């Protein structure tokens, strides 16, 4: 069996990333979950958090995902998110500004979203 899974990371308005991977780690509501080829069919609810995708070439793709679902069957993995960004799409400076603003305005949701982005951006470097 080919030890690869086909991953599609789709946001509501676009396909963010798709390709082959050997391991995908995502955070569900009940904890982190790692999916490798041959995993049993799975459907889970995602928390906002970074998603790590390991490609067969040994590279890593990190994306910030804000809520959504993970579904896996027949070595096809889909990550559905309302909003998803790859780590290299994230502008660290702007997110830091956003985080500061969210903290100042005491907006817990915006703060968490900015925090997730920041973590994903730093993890992808």
């Amino acid at each position, binding site marked *: 069996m080919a030890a690869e899974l086909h991953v*599609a990371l*789709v946001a*509501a308005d676009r396909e963010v990333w798709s390709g082959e991977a050997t391991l995908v780690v995502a955070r569900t509501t009940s904890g982190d979950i790692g999916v490798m080829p041959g995993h049993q069919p799975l*459907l*889970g*609810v995602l928390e906002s958090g970074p998603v790590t995708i390991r490609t067969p070439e040994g590279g890593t793709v990190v994306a910030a995902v804000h809520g*959504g679902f993970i579904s896996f069957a*027949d070595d096809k993995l889909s990550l*559905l998110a*309302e909003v998803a960004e790859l780590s290299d799409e994230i502008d660290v400076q702007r997110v830091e500004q956003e985080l500061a603003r969210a903290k100042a305005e005491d907006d817990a949701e915006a703060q968490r979203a900015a925090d997730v982005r920041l973590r994903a951006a730093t993890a992808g470097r």
Partner: protein
Amino acid sequence: MGAQLRVYKRRIRSVTATKKITKAMEMIAASRVVKAQRKVAASTPYAQELTRAVTAVGTGSNTKHPLTTEADNPTRAAVLLLTSDRGLAGAFNANAIKAAEQLTERLEREGKQVDTYIVGRRGVAHYNFRERKIAETFTGFTDEPSYADAKKVAAPLIEAIQSETADGGVDELHIVYTEFVSMMTQTAVGSRLLPLRLDDAAAETAGKGEILPLYDFEPSAEDVLDALLPRYVESRIYNALLQSAASKHAATRRAMKSATDNAGELINTLSRLANAARQAEITQEISEIVGGASALADATAGSDN
């Protein structure tokens, strides 16, 4: 220049200006259709995967969820009507409104009370003019809807369907929008969004006749369904908004194209009339000159004698 000719010239000028405007609007609409179509295409993978997931939970578990089970005796329904903010789109809004009215009538015949939710100023104006009750309206984004707009529209609907019928909730959720079939064809359709018809949803997923695997739900089937269905409604509304926007631009393009064609025709007719008037003027002048000259000749011939 004679008065007649001047009037024709003025009308030709004004029609030419109108033609320029409609031509520009046609071209703007044409470029927007392409953009809107691209957005529809970009949103398809998400909608497809989501529908697949919903079908998987719905068929793969014995969960009873208010959003998937039909009420024994549905008494209230919500209808979401998607129109546009601006007109100049031929029969686009009229068709959508007509479809919504037919659906409302049918639901009322079945003994259901109907709450109407409207997107777009045109639909709102139509209902307000007839002093009909509207549950909620949303305006200002129909040309280029974003996912955030879809969420805004979906929020009160999801709330209504989740609350008890006695407390102002609804049992069913219908949506009326204009489906973008092709550049030339857009049809207003009404469909039931909730409760979900699982066989319909299954038919929509890409693989026909494919057997869905038995999923392991994380954390549980109920929780997954709870989280999935609002997202499903949002994504369906988003898709409908995008299709409606694409259809509106296509309808505008067509309406403006025929306006441009008509203006062209009018210019042709007016030019012919202006030519005839100019010719008549010249003929008249010549006959006046000839008449004057011969009268003069007659007069001088008479004085010689």
